[in-house]
């Protein structure tokens, strides 16, 4: 065994966020190396540094002992490093064959000077690779017509057409059925035998223990440990992934918790949610934990009418709550604050003022004319209450910091006078100071009697703020924990 890829001392920061700090990892020839960590631990950032999507601020990458720099994705391909994306990067309108060789088609000369794509050579090579991988996909099929598993196989085959020696598999089994997972593992075994090294990101412990040779755990962008898979237990891995002390960042205020006001019973949606039931009480902060893609966001969207569920009932204040649109949900007092604030929450080229009152324009306008006095009243209140740091309310939202944008988003939600506020990742991409402020705001809202559903991947935040929490996995409810039973290990064990 020899080391093929080695990363040392990798640092990478984004404005306000330290994504990777002193990261290291070593990959041996022909090994399958699993990478574990919580949501947001820095796994994806690390992979993007290796494949040249991001450039590291500091640190060295060695390939076969030689120091290299990877400037862009194409560079990585050229050096034999390929990533198989969760969201496949294929061209859906083109055929499998065209996709396999896009950008590096074999060519040949006719009449000595007309250089053109050599289809027979392409087909021959593609067939060889497919035979090696043990897959059978028609080469002239349009990629659009293939299933997820086949698309993934095409991605792997595509990496091999570049002569890749290192494959990065990012949650390859996330969207596959059991049978497809077996087929994938079969292919992975063939690749290993051929001396191809793989970095394998997965949340599924049983998979890691089945196919990995070694495992590296990372946490908060930092390297924790690398171990042979035979030397560790699942419990140990989880402990390494968590391994963080709870701090006193969370100003939990004692609140009188009232009667249940929102009841969700047997909520189901094919392939997304199955049989989820829970209650939220007045003045309560109800946490929802789970991995990304476990169905947390979809659950929230089903409740507030952004998505339609197939079975189950939602009742709100003892009335059936079956809203047909999000507008109706807002009017009834259920407001959702999206995790992706730039895409779904704020209209960034508009001012703070315009954003804040967007969802309540009808309240402050008559015959479509906005009453600016009323508008100003509402805004002044929230600017003060939430402590939005901006020169004035006519400031363009795009120019605010992440934390302040989040505050504007919360203000926009509050302007609609909600009884229940659903916060999806309320502090993602926000610096520590602003985070604490947002937590203070949430606590105060609960104190005023508002019920809050908080979806978060930030474990300390979730445990620090919630009165109760529910863990979801693959769209199913795994369990509910009371505040007295909270522990990071417990939640993670349930979520994985």
């Amino acid at each position, binding site marked *: 065994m020899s080391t093929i890829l080695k990363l040392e001392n990798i640092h990478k920061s984004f404005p306000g966020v330290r994504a990777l700090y002193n990261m290291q990892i070593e990959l041996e020839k022909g090994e399958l190396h699993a990478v574990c960590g919580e949501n947001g631990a820095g796994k994806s950032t690390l992979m993007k540094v290796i494949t040249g999507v991001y450039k590291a601020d500091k640190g060295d990458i060695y390939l076969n002992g030689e120091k290299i720099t990877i400037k*862009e*994705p*194409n560079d990585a*391909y050229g050096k034999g490093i390929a990533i198989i994306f969760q969201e496949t*990067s*294929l*061209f*859906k*309108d*083109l*055929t499998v*064959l*065209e996709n396999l060789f*896009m*950008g590096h*088609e074999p*060519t040949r000369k006719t009449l000595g000077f007309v*250089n*053109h*794509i050599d*289809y027979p050579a392409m*087909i021959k090579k593609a067939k060889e690779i497919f035979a090696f991988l043990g897959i059978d996909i*028609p*080469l*002239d099929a349009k990629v*659009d017509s293939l299933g997820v598993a086949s698309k993934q196989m095409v991605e792997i085959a595509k990496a091999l057409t570049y002569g890749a020696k290192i494959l990065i598999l990012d949650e390859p089994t996330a969207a596959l059925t059991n049978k497809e997972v077996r087929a994938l593992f079969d292919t992975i075994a063939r690749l290993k035998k051929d001396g191809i090294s793989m970095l394998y990101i997965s949340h599924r412990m049983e998979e890691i223990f089945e196919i990995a040779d070694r495992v590296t755990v990372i946490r908060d962008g930092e390297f924790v440990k690398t171990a042979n898979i035979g030397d560790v237990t699942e419990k140990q891995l989880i402990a390494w992934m968590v391994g963080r002390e709870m701090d006193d960042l969370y100003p939990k205020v004692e609140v009188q918790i009232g009667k249940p006001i929102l009841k969700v019973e047997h909520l189901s*949606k094919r392939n*997304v949610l199955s049989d989820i039931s829970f209650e939220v009480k007045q003045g309560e902060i109800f946490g929802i934990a789970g991995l990304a893609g476990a169905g947390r966001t*979809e659950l929230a*969207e089903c409740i507030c009418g*952004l*998505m*339609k*569920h*197939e079975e189950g009932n939602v009742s709100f204040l003892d009335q059936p709550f079956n809203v047909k649109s*999000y507008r109706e949900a807002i009017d009834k007092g259920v407001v959702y604050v*999206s995790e992706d604030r730039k*895409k*779904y929450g704020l*209209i960034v080229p508009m001012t703070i003022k315009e954003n804040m009152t*967007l*969802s309540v324009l009808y309240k402050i306008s008559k015959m479509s004319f906005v009453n600016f006095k009323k508008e100003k009243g509402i805004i002044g209140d929230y600017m003060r209450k939430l402590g939005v740091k901006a020169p004035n309310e006519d400031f363009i939202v795009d120019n605010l910091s992440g934390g302040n944008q989040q505050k504007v988003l919360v203000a926009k939600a509050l302007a609609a006078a909600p009884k229940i506020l659903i916060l999806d990742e309320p502090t993602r991409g926000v610096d520590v100071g602003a985070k604490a402020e947002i937590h203070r705001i949430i606590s105060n809202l609960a104190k005023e009697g508002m019920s809050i559903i908080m979806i978060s991947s930030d474990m300390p935040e979730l445990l620090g703020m919630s009165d109760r929490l529910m863990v979801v996995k693959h769209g199913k409810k795994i369990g509910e924990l009371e505040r007295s039973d909270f522990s990071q290990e417990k939640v993670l064990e349930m979520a994985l």
Partner: protein
Amino acid sequence: MGISNRNSILYGTKKFVASREGVLGVFAVLFFVVLCFTSNFSTDLYSYFKDVSYMILAGLALMLVIMTGNIDISSGTVLGVVGFVAGNLLKMGVPVPFVILASMLVGMLNSAIIGFITVRFRVPSMVVSLAMVKLHIGIFPLLPNAGWVSNMPQSVIDMGNTKIFGFVPVLLLFSLAVLIFLVWFMKYTRFGKKIYAVGGSAESAKLAGIKSDKVTFIVFLMSGALLGLTSVVFWLPSSQVQPSGTIGMDMTFITIAVVSGVSMLGGTGKPIGVLFSAALIAMLQRACILWQLGNAWLYTFYGIIVIMAVFSSVTDFEKFKSKFAFGKTTSLKGRA
């Protein structure tokens, strides 16, 4: 395709009829038959083929641009500009091959401006080319004789009207040759593949190491060259060049491209489809002339056809359902 091992004649025929090109081909043939029976169409066959000749080239030019997710509205009026230059060169006695070259250069210059501004400054090509249209229309009256070039040498007019068998213009053969070259080009060159890639997904193209901006700019140049050729084919058989007559032709060209099966979102399109859609649109134009329906009806038909063509590209029902049905995970899209 040659890629498939399922190459029985029956399978091939079925596949062809089921494809968009097939449908268009059948439609065009039916239309042709109907017209032959209902009017004195056969005597106008020559004029019809003359229309088809320039429409094929213009359709190809637009198809390429639309495939990259762009558009060129100035593709109509640029014919006027090129016509003015080419007409004067011909009158000065410059040999035809050089005039063709010059025409291509003028077309490329126009497209290069659009392409450069689009790529470099991220301005939608719709806006840039709209500005070029206004520029062209503004320039026409400022040219000597308002851009009109009359009294073209008879030898040139005769050359433009050369025919084979009494009804096939030589220009049609020229256009078909260009078409065949593009069919080959799109399938057998790396650059052809890159055009599909850039239009299909800019993100994936980047990951495949394709420089989208460069490809888009070159596509604009190609399109400009094709529009230059279009002008030559369009003006050569006529005795005079009248630039203002080209205003509005861009819509005809866009119609041809859209009907050929290129998605307005980019990424799809086959040169062979342009042959059928040019045949169809030219047929429609001829029919409206023969039946004296006038432009009002012609434009009405264009409108209906474009809507049908655009709709048929979303009639892939599964795709349609997943896009508009309730409860898709992207349900947040479009929310204020």
